[in-house]
């Protein structure tokens, strides 16, 4: 039964990593840039939710705070692209990467100024409740994380496969020039991808914060999520989720059976092994880069 609880909490962690990794992948696919502020966007999303719903701050009902947070973070993502990143168009990748790292610092600083550097927890209606069946006790928050992630993944699948905007996003990532020729407003599509990845980061942040405490340095989780994205195959959304879940599962099990120090090393050890033996990641779309 112990293993089952480890499995569920590992899955829940992995889902959060997977969601942040999806944010990386969304932006990488659309714009070929890596957004190193993705983890900090997650952290900011968590703090915005906390600021909106906690008694000490705005004290809005949780069900109001969540959609509001998602909207705010989508707007933050959209503006990051429309105001800052669009201006680096034509610059080298390094410029974009440095810019996103800098934006990450700014987010951390802003969060610290507004909400302080002490760890805080989100007052979520899910926190601290259990569900039991048989002899198994599972945290409601953890089950919730898994359910939401599955729902979001299915939703994203339908968005990309069935809606005009979703297909247009795929089209502009596969052949940007042709997208221009077809009258797809590529720049706006890019900004919308950033908005989507902001929204996903907000959901990841809310889910993460409802499982434990957060502080402005929580954004460094983004590094682990980036490893997850690379393990899964940077450029594949299912791969991102898979990579996240692998890391999420490996951590608690190796902590239990191999000890804490080795457990902290494991995600990166897997990353190194993947990069050596399958450099495009587990679920890569190599043919996408052929053209």
């Amino acid at each position, binding site marked *: 039964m112990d293993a089952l609880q480890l499995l569920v909490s590992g899955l829940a962690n992995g889902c959060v990593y997977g969601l942040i990794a999806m944010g990386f992948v969304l932006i990488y696919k659309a714009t070929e840039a890596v957004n190193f502020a993705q983890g900090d966007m997650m952290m900011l999303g968590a703090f915005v939710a906390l600021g909106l719903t906690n008694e000490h701050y705005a004290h809005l009902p949780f069900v109001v705070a969540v959609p509001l947070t998602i909207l705010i973070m989508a707007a933050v993502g959209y503006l990051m692209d429309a105001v800052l990143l669009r201006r680096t168009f034509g610059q080298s990748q390094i410029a974009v990467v440095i810019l996103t790292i800098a934006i990450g610092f700014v987010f951390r600083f802003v969060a610290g100024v507004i909400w302080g550097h002490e760890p805080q927890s989100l007052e979520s209606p899910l926190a601290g409740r259990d569900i039991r069946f048989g002899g198994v006790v599972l945290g409601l928050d953890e089950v919730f994380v898994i359910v939401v992630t599955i729902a979001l993944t299915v939703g994203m699948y339908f968005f990309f496969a069935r809606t*005009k905007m979703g*297909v*247009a996003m*795929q*089209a502009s990532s*596969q*052949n940007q*020039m*042709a*997208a*221009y*020729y*077809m*009258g*797809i*407003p590529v720049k706006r599509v890019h900004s919308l991808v950033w908005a989507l990845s902001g929204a996903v980061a907000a959901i990841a942040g809310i889910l993460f914060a409802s499982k434990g405490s957060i502080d402005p340095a929580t954004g460094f989780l983004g590094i682990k999520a980036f490893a997850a994205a690379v393990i899964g195959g940077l450029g594949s959304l299912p791969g991102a989720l898979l990579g996240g879940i692998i890391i999420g599962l490996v951590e608690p099990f190796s902590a239990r059976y191999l000890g804490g120090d080795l457990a902290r090393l494991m995600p990166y050890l897997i990353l190194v092994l993947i990069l050596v033996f399958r450099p495009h990641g587990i679920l890569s*779309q190599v*043919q*996408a880069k*052929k*053209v």
Partner: protein
Amino acid sequence: MSEPILRVDNLESYYGPVMAIRGVSVEVHEGQIVTVLGANGAGKTTLLKTISGIMDPEKGTIHLEGESIQGMEPDQIVRRGVIHVPEGREVFPLLSVEENLLMGAYTRNDKAGVRNDLEMVYGYFPILKDKARQAAGTLSGGQQQMLAIGRGLLAKPKVMLLDEPSLGLSPLLVKEIFTIIKRLNTEQGVTMMLVEQNAKVALDTAHHGYVMEIGRIVMNDKAPVLAASKDIQEFYLGVQEAGERTQKRWKKRKTWR
């Protein structure tokens, strides 16, 4: 003659510091196929890119139905009815054939009309219907060219800009594609501006022709007249006359500009 649907006046465009087209004027009338011939680097593709808004002109005007469209964003120009079928096909490789076609209709909101046009395109290119669910990247070159043309048709264009549809295709396929281009023009009334290096097939298909060289229009006449002219025969159709010096005749004249 009536006012042309597309009128380009004294257009100048640069690639960085290089002037790629130098004061080009072209007219396309509704229902016509107008071809622009020329060798590599003559500026034909630049001309099309400037019309479709991918590049901004330095000088000159482009009018579509009397409205000036130069310097607009590509999506606005597509919305006004100019679609560009690019050189080298440029399909979306991982999208299905049908999704590719529907991306051509991105700027349209009339679902029923798009459905009709999709069936129309499938009527002209039955192979695309057979492969509707297949990823476009798996099609052959000729099929991708058909897909690129079909995708352009789905924008319901007032003017379709076709950039070298014959590029890299076998003579048989070139013939097949140009037969369909001609049918689209006569049966569907699609107005086209056709850029080609393959002068023979282009002049057989088109009503009117222009010849471009190093960024300028050097000849301009009805297609049969051009096809009969000595210069074209020599330099584009490969007809050699014994004893003739290989000097382009328009270069001997002082007034060609």
